[in-house]
């Protein structure tokens, strides 16, 4: 039955209502299981431009991700590395995510890589998953929230695509293979 519930409950679709799960499975083993399932779902889904994988086989709480700029946006064709760190009480607390390669973006701190996204802070819900977060981050690239900028310069420059693009490319660092 367990399998059925996990496969039926679409981890990909963020249900707006608060999570009803969590009555069982406190402790790391259930978190590990959840993360394993999320990894499986992420691997088997074919979402273009987003991907993530644990950094090493010994620690399932520390992942590396890749985000490609969505087509049709100013970020199109570029790629960034992010790091994802899951807290021990995941999914009741959001993972800590930051850009590892510099991303010139109104909601991203150009130095620390910190991201300002509501679902990663107060709007977090246990029904979100790695995949939904990655998709959110990807769409954030094309649609920044200029009301609460972490990078005011970028927020100010957003209206001028040419200059903005220059700034992006100034900071952009291709992912070393």
């Amino acid at each position: 039955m367990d399998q059925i519930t996990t496969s039926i409950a679409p981890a990909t679709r963020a249900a707006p209502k608060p999570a009803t799960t969590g009555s069982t499975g406190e402790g790391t083993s259930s978190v590990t299981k959840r993360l394993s399932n999320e990894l499986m779902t992420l691997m088997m889904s074919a979402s273009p431009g987003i991907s993530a994988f644990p950094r090493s086989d010994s620690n399932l709480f520390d992942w590396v991700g890749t985000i490609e700029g969505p087509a049709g946006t100013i970020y199109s064709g570029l790629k960034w590395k992010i790091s994802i760190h899951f807290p021990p009480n995941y999914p009741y607390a959001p993972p800590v995510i930051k850009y590892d390669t510099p991303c010139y973006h109104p909601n991203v701190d150009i130095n620390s890589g910190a991201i300002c996204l509501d679902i990663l802070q107060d709007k977090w819900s246990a029904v979100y998953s790695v995949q939904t977060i990655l998709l959110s981050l990807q769409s954030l690239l094309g649609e920044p929230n200029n009301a609460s900028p972490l990078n005011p310069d970028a927020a100010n420059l957003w209206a001028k695509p040419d200059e903005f693009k220059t700034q992006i490319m100034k900071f952009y660092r291709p992912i070393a293979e």
Partner: protein
Amino acid sequence: MATPQLYQQVALQWSKSFLVLNRDEPPISGLLSFSQAWILVKEVLRPRDLTEATQRGTINLTDLTIAADIITKCNMLHVLQDDFMDAVRQHLHLITRDIEQLMGQYDVSSDVQHIAKLVARLSEWHTAWSPMQQFGSSMANAYNLAFQTHVYSILPSSFTQGFKSLVTLTFNLAVDHDGSEWLFTLFPKPERPSARADSALWNAFQQLSLIERYESLISTICYEYVEGHILETCAGRWDEPMLNAIREWMANKIVPWMLMPFARGAKTSDDAKSMLQGIGSRLDFHVCKTLADLRTKEIFDIIIDYPDSTNALKDLKECLARVDQRSQLVQTLRKANKRRLLHPGADTKDILTQYVSIIRCLRMVDPPGVLLFKVADPIRQYLRSRPDTIRCIVASLVGDGESGDSLVDENEPIQPLQPLQAEDYSDPNWEPEPIDAGPDFRTSKPSDVISTLVSIYDSKELFVKELQVLLAQRLLTIKDGNYDRERRNIEILKIRFGEAALQVCEVMLKDMTDSRRIDQHIQSKNASVLHPTIISKQFWPTLQSTMFAMPGQFRDLQESYSKEFTAFKPDKKLAWLPHLGTVTLDIELDDRTVSASVTPLEAGFIELFTTFDTWTVTELLAQVGNVDRTMALKAISTWVDLGVIKESGSDEYTLLNIAEANDGEIKSRAPQAPAVEDLPPVVTLQEQQAEQMKVFWKFIEGMLTNLGQLSLDRIHGMLKFAPGYDRSIEQLAGFMEAARREGLVTMRDGMWRLNK
């Protein structure tokens, strides 16, 4: 210029010689008698030409003895000997002439008769010139030496060949007494019947010292003869013990023959025995070696013939104990296996059968199992590379009666699989490993065949998985509800694999009986014509799912049944697998009723014809959902064959409410046996694995995308995140290599990365 001293000296010598020759006889009668004796002896010893008319006259032996005595007394024997030897040497050309003539004839005709004639002639010459015994042994020795030296120096090399044939000829003479008559005209049979027919010939050989000179050749002839006999009598005859028969034959036939060349001087039978001992044991060794060689060459076919060839194997064992040919046996068998067994053309089942026979045969030849270990290794490796090996072994485990002989011996007691045991040194009967065991040789107790087969693979889990697939297939084909046979199989297998491993199979069996119980319950609540088999998804191998939905009344049946089931077992839900099962139905048409037992898809189609009379294939497909077009066409053709519908246009079928006139013709087509579903489409282990590999690939892709380049080790380690990953690193390496060939990844310095 004779000086007085010289003259004096000559006179002294003269008188001395005179005194010796005259032997104090008065006055010169001694000198006269010596002179007579010398003349007589010279005439007697003169080497004559055999073709000459004048032969040595009859010699008065007394005269000769007296004459010889006189010469000896006069100290003139050595002078006589020198004189005689000179004469012999001068006449040796006579012998040369004969040798050349006869050898010339032999060279032209290769007829062994000429060799025999030559031997006879040489013997005659030798006798004719031989000095009488009165002249002492030193003269005889000198004569023999000179004669033989000369003869051997001029015999051409082809003589050896001729001599060989001549000796070979004697094998049959010795026993059968019916040899070529010509030989006996040259070498007459002895008078005494007890003597051997060819003793005259051997005497001649002896006289000419041919036996000494050609001793090794004679042994070779003997070896070859024995070898020929063995090859002739034993080749291809594996059903009776041959070694003892050969040894008997040796005692009766070869040993009497050997008496002539090898035990000529023997006076008593004990003497002969001790003289023959050396050559005899060498010959016995040769017999064993020849037989071992022969059997080694035939070993592959002997194994095929097992158990009819048991006796040949026993012979081989005995021979191998005497000669050390074990490594040859291993090499030959390995080569034969590679050439004849381990190739793509051989059926896996045949390979397994032969492997089992090899196990049995080599255990017989070599109980400690060293030979087997060395031979089995390539076979096991090869079997491991075959995808259907496990299936074959499992099928034979379950004892598919219909597939003929099973690998398992019925009489063998069923025993648990035996893990390889570490050596128990506290065992008082412990024995060290045989000396030719390799370093990686593992002592395997004479365990049963199944244990050996299962040990081809590192884990028995694979077998259990395959067993589940096989069991699923078999359970689903059973229609009469009699699962005794399967239950018995599972019980037997439990003994082998242990209870725990077969728990899943147990659940599968239980599902079958539970299904009937549940069905009875539901029937009692709400009678239905539907009798499903309810299986637990978790415990059954993945069944191929074709997602089609039964139309019309079938769906109603399913739904009502599902409802009852949910009421009975609220926590469970039925998921229908409509492509499995059979439907027995009556079709009531305007003029007739057709009864048929068909597959669900066929039933579904004909159900659709109750709504409309004409359908196209595409429409039918749209109604039932996801079905392969070929399967659909097959289902439709069943009804066409039964004369229920007909093809009314391209891709269009119409119901025949009234049978067509030329119905007979259709009927004459033998109504197909209700399509015997080959085997329920259980996803085979192989397909499951392929499916799994796809999942693993996604993971590999994911990790390489995010982590850049990775070594094989790390990929292997990371794949533990993938569910059910149980491959070895070698398997992974093979898989990555395949991916590289497809251009999905690249590899440099041991690091893998995605190909951009």
